[in-house]
């Protein structure tokens, strides 16, 4: 597949062309072009992902045997805290929406930019400032934070480590997320090209739309919760201190009111990515367009009401357990509907298994495992046994990494030619994919099994009966890392030496493929008049 530009044909660098008026770096960090901001996010997010993954490898290495292996308990506790903070707040929350969303949202709806381009640049700057603050907490007084990414009080109020700075960094990151959400909602409502009706909106845009609402509505609660941690630490208010009439459970409620919807911020845009890729490579329109679109909204709405399933053993009332368990099962339904529609899209197609499709189909499988093991956690009786064990760690890595991460890689392989006008080596990409799938399952499936056997999470040391499964998991982490390294090398080579591609190498029907690769600075010379749906593949390449 793919029409490669012939030898001698003029290759344009589109928006990547330097302005020549100022140093090239300034061209980027002060650009209000949504495509450049998208790539700024992509580069920063990939950098933080590499750091987070390295820390993950260190954690696994420590756990290869009981007792001390490479670090002591204090450093280990800082490592898992840091791994969580980086992966959650710096990689997976901004991952797909901020990097791919920024780049693609205006292109897919036929606009020249987002509604507020300068606000968009500010969001990136806030993201970088927040990240620097959160990471500099490592080196400041008191040592690296050791609370876990959840900052549970009262411990987070008492520990002498540098929690305050990390919490403030996350607070700033929250604003970046809120502003991006606002920007996207406005853009989707106000900036669609003529003819781009709601029923012609690509499903990726639907998922960004649902996500943006969660970002705008839920993130302020995180912000206020973080302010309360700070006031607890600095002013000693005692809001969550039982000895002074406060309530430690209240903190958990406030934290999860944001942090559970946040997992849908992490997974809805990836679902949107998969909904884009599967039709193109199956050469069939998405099955049940309206059901896939509506299920995004349903997940965002129902997902905002299920936070209590993180607290079944916290000491909250049994009535609350009943209600939250029921609501948790309800959120499983729209997720299942999506999976069935994706599989049905394959029926009668003419399927090509290029790298983006392999990653997208793997998303469906890994996310199914994550979702089905989530049923164990939603059911009150079984939740009690596996709560706060390695089962939970394995489960959420299946959803967040197997889901979110693999969709991020799928998006990277799908839109890479659009971003850079070059194609990577598909054979190497397939090898990388295969290696990652094997490593991933060894790593996280072993974790779930060892959790079923009763190994608690956030354990620096463990009893000898857990050794074998931990060793398998650690070996899996090496294989996974090898696959990711291969993928990174393959894409970096392509960035330099990849074959040039034309506007529409995958013969897709959404609007971003009607402009050159890479797109020109203003996207569309004149705004397109949209005349067909996003998956009308017979009219691929037309507006």
């Amino acid at each position, binding site marked *: 597949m793919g029409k490669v530009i012939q030898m001698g044909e003029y290759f344009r660098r589109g928006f990547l062309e330097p302005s020549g008026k100022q140093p090239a770096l300034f061209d980027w960090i002060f650009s209000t072009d949504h495509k450049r901001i998208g790539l700024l996010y992509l580069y920063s997010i990939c950098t933080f992902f590499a750091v987070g993954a390295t820390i993950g490898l260190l954690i696994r290495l420590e756990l290869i045997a009981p007792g001390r292996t490479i670090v002591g308990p204090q450093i280990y506790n800082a490592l898992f805290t840091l791994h969580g903070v980086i992966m959650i707040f710096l990689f997976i929350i901004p991952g797909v929406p901020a990097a791919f969303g920024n780049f693609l949202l205006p292109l897919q709806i036929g606009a020249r930019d987002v509604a507020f381009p300068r606000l968009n640049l500010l969001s990136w700057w806030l993201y970088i400032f927040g990240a620097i603050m959160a990471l500099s907490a490592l080196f400041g007084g008191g040592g690296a934070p050791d609370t876990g990414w959840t900052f549970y009080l009262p411990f987070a109020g*008492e520990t002498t480590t540098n929690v305050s700075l990390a919490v403030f960094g996350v607070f700033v990151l929250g604003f970046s997320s809120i502003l991006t959400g606002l920007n996207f909602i406005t853009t989707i409502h106000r900036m669609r090209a003529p003819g781009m009706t709601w029923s012609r909106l690509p499903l990726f845009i639907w998922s960004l739309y649902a996500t943006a609402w969660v970002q705008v509505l839920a993130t302020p609660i995180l912000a206020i919760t973080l302010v309360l941690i700070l006031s607890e630490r600095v002013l000693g208010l005692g809001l969550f201190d039982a000895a002074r009439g406060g309530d430690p459970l209240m903190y958990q409620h406030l934290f999860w009111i944001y942090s559970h919807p946040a997992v849908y911020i992490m997974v809805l845009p990836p679902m949107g990515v998969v909904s884009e890729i599967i039709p193109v490579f199956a050469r069939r329109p998405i099955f049940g367009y309206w059901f896939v679109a509506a299920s995004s909204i349903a997940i965002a709405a129902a997902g905002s009401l299920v936070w209590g399933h993180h607290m079944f*053993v916290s000491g909250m009332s049994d009535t609350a357990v009943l209600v939250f368990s029921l609501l948790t099962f309800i959120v499983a339904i729209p997720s299942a509907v999506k999976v069935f529609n994706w599989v049905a899209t394959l029926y009668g197609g003419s399927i090509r298994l290029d790298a983006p499709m392999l990653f997208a189909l793997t998303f469906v499988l890994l996310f199914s495992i994550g979702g089905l093991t989530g049923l164990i956690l939603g059911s009150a*009786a079984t939740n009690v*046994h596996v709560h706060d064990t390695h089962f939970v760690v394995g489960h959420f890595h299946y959803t967040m990494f197997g889901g979110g991460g693999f969709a991020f890689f799928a998006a990277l392989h799908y839109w890479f030619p659009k971003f850079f006008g070059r194609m990577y080596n598909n054979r190497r990409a397939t090898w990388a994919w295969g290696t990652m799938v094997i490593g991933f399952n060894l790593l996280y499936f072993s974790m779930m099994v060892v959790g079923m056997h009763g190994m608690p999470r956030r354990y620096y040391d463990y009893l000898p009966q857990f050794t074998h499964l931990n060793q398998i998991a650690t070996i899996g982490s090496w294989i996974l890392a090898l696959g990711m390294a291969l993928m990174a090398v393959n894409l970096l080579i392509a960035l330099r030496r990849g074959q040039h591609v034309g506007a529409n190498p995958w013969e897709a029907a959404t609007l971003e493929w009607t402009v050159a690769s890479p797109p020109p600075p203003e996207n569309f010379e004149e705004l397109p008049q949209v005349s067909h749906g996003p998956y009308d593949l017979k009219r691929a390449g037309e507006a």
Partner: protein
Amino acid sequence: MTPTLLDTVEAVDKVFLYIFGISLVLFLLITGVMVAFAIRFHHSRHPHPKDVPSTCLWLEITWTLIPTLIVMSMFWYGWQGYLSLVNVPPDAFPIQAVARQWSWSFVYPSGRTSPKLVVPAEQPVRIDIVSEDVLHSLYIPAFRIKKDAVPGMTTHVWFRAPQTGSFDLFCTEYCGLAHASMITSVEVLSAADFKTWLQTPQLAAGAGKGRQLLEQYGCLACHSLDGGTRIGPSFAKLAEGEKRPLAEGPDKSVTVSRDYLERSILDPGNEIVQGFSAVMPSYRDKIGEQDLQAIIDFLLQPDKDAAAGEPRP
């Protein structure tokens, strides 16, 4: 079916089997169909996509309704199992669990305390859980029970051990530096042995008392008696007049005395011994004057390890 008549293990494992069973079938179905389609409709076998409708209302309704019924049954089954976990049989033997950074202490109605959870076989036990500092969580995988220890609250779990044996007990709510060492065990004794154990008087005075207090207050989780290094410095070589180098500087040191030990217990954030860090919680307001003096008496006597022996079941 009256849920409270079920043992915790029985109640929970049925739900595990039910959900895992259905999940496995669903997963195999999804994977199987996906792989079958990917092979059957691969472009090499199927070069032109079929023109079939891309929406179908009854299919959508079917695959919304069936999962709804399935997950609702899981919800209800899980809730029934949960009721078995929270409804304590009336004849349960009461024990209090006290969690602190980073040890457990179990208090029996007779006043006897133990660092291990000693229970009788075949009789239900109810454990009321309290915390003295941050959040902890009491987890006994063998009996499928877990509940957080929350400061200012009393939570509870119950279980019935069918036979004698020894089982692991973990803390599963992250509680700081030595979270992973906050492990003890459940010792299930026969009814007769348990009765005897319960009636064995704890040593009331002297060395035994001091040793018992160290256990009761959780000191031994971090400080060894035999010279081994744990989270904090060992008690083994403590003796009046000994000089201990401090973490502050290469030539700062302190002389061990009653006063120094008292400061270290009530105000442990200062005078940190070289090689260790300031992680110990303060015991001010948590320990009575008599207990404090008894502990100091014990700490200053030579050969502590042998002095008290093992007052274990």
